[in-house]
């Protein structure tokens, strides 16, 4: 068993129930293939530095989990097919740093007020 971090970028024009479905879908994939989700972070809507597939913004979801090689193949296979995702990245770690959060979700409602 190893520690991994996985980040997804979903498309900008998705509704909130659709985003929750995406988050649930990938936690289910990890738990079904004998993995263990440690933490899920939602970074919210963020601007890209450059355009990705003609999109300027995207929703970020960040997973920290413990799993084996089998789950990684499953996640990669599913996220390549997935139409609502723009990009994804998995990184292997020897030790997971759970406490520090470099990117925090900004409340969009507070900005409007």
């Amino acid at each position: 068993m190893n520690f991994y971090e996985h980040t997804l970028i979903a498309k900008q024009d998705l509704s909130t129930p659709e985003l929750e479905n995406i988050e649930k879908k990938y936690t289910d994939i990890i738990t079904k293939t004998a993995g263990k989700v440690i933490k899920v972070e939602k970074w919210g809507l963020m601007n890209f530095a450059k355009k990705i597939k003609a999109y300027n913004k995207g929703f970020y979801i960040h997973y920290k989990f413990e799993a084996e090689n089998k789950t990684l193949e499953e996640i990669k296979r599913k996220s390549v097919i997935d139409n609502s995702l723009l990009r994804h990245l998995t990184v292997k770690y020897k030790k997971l740093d759970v406490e520090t959060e470099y990117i925090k979700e900004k409340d969009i409602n507070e900005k409007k007020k």
Partner: protein
Amino acid sequence: MKRKNNKFNKRPQNPLNKLSLFQKNDSRFSKKCPLSGKDAPTVDYKNIKLLKRYISDTDKIMPSRITSVSQNKQRKLTSEIKKAKILGFI
């Protein structure tokens, strides 16, 4: 009375103050690595503020001879910057 000859014992600070041409240039460029040591910040692809310091205006990775980052940390920096570019942070 002893005369203090401090003037000749001192090494020249500025290379233009050298006594002769063949004297060694002592004021070499030397600086410690900002990323290694005890309270150094962690190099990670999520730490965007730190990564942006080591990138030029045209999004190129700065050479270590300018930033004086150690060889080991420079290798780590390049890999983390490339990960951040995939996710669209930089």
